[in-house]
């Protein structure tokens, strides 16, 4: 028994609603079960069988919303094997819980801490290079960020379904860590370019200020507090200058 293409596509598309009914007690388990539902429906014709299969996935479950595709693919493949009697429910749940944490860590490290700031750095430079079409910087930011996000969902699902638990070896070949270092270095360089090039040409003064702010951030001050503090210091300085 194998799952037709349509339920697999539907399952991958539904992963967008992973955070839909998130709760503290069970995190994303409902969204995950909902995403897996087309697969379960195609594997189990009887409602009670479907309910039993779904019930197994309703325990606590949490991962990154962008890397969930891999996990969904793996679980869909394992559910298929389970329906053929080659696997037990425990095998499926063990694979799911073993992979959820590492995939969440990859998603956090790559998407939130590397790709999002990198996309922002590109948008900053785009807004500088094309000042008259500045509004399109936001569109570029969205496109740039969401292209790999959607790619990770779709290709992750495909790889997970095809290679099942062996997908870990395939993901290791992607060298995500190296890519993150390269993107981080490039992002830092782009931010520097944005800072140095102003309307009046290349200036180094903003670097000095960025260095001062960077020092305060290293001390543990939050950017919001630092922004308010900068405003307060600037106002006091202006008042003092006016008084003198």
């Amino acid at each position, binding site marked *: 028994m194998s799952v037709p293409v349509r339920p697999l596509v539907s399952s991958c598309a539904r992963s967008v609603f992973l955070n839909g*009914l998130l709760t503290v007690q069970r995190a994303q388990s409902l969204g995950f079960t909902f995403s897996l539902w087309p697969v379960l429906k195609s594997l189990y014709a009887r409602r009670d069988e479907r309910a039993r299969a779904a019930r197994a996935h309703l325990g606590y479950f949490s991962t990154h919303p962008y890397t969930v595709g891999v996990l969904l693919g793996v679980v869909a493949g394992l559910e298929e094997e389970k329906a053929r009697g080659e696997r037990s429910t425990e095998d499926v749940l063990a694979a799911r819980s073993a992979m959820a944490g590492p995939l969440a860590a990859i998603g956090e490290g790559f998407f939130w801490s*590397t790709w*999002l700031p990198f996309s922002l750095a590109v948008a900053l430079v785009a807004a500088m290079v094309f000042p008259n079409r500045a509004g399109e910087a936001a569109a570029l930011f969205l496109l740039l960020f969401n292209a790999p996000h959607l790619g990770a969902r779709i290709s992750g699902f495909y790889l997970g379904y095809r290679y099942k638990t062996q997908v870990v070896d395939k993901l290791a070949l992607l060298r995500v860590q190296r890519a993150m270092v390269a993107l981080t270095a490039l992002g*830092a360089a782009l931010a520097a370019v944005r*800072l140095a090039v102003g309307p009046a040409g290349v200036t180094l003064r903003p670097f000095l200020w*960025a260095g001062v702010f960077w020092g305060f951030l290293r001390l543990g001050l939050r950017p919001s507090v630092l922004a*308010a503090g900068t405003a307060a210091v600037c*106002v006091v300085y202006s*008042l003092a200058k006016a008084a003198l």
Partner: protein
Amino acid sequence: MTGLLSALLYGLLAIDHFAGGPFLLSRPLVLGALLGALWGRPAEGLALGLLGESLWVLVPPAGPAQWDTGLAVALACVWAFGWEGAQKAGTPRGAFLAVAFLTGIPFAVAAKRVDVWVRRNTRLFADYARAGFNHGVSGPFWNGLGMSIVLWGFKSLVVFFVAENLGGLVCGAVYPRLGGPVAEGLDQAWALWPALGAATLWHLFFGRLGKNWKSWFPTRGPA
């Protein structure tokens, strides 16, 4: 009318933060650019958006566990562009933008409490959906998801309206009096904040590079 459209736009896009993708539709950069275009001030909207995005790039759009950074920028846009009638003539523009930006932060942080409260109470929808799965049907999940999306959208609208009006009182009181050295200082701060945004990005990037400096060099793998 534009204020109402701004609220609707924010309410619609905030659903992405709470119930969907997230596709980053409710990030400060996107909201700043859209609201700036809506109010006829695209460059200033983008500047507010880029500043908010740079400062809070490390706050992921991960639902009510994090405060909605997009709300701070959306409110700042409405106050900076919608209250132009109250703004004192001759005062540098950066001063008004700085006041609007600083006023938006506490409102957005306070709104997180409302988000947490709503999330606790949407457990009813989750229980309803879970009961459906226990009986072998997915219809209750669809219903629960639909109700949840409506609720989050409605919550975002209410929060926006309340914050817009309360903050509007603050900005409406401050703007006509804003001038002299205070306005000059705020304008200077507005000019300095992009450097703060870049420093925040560097802090993040260098922090990551510092942790992973060994991976800059090729290593010999296990035999």
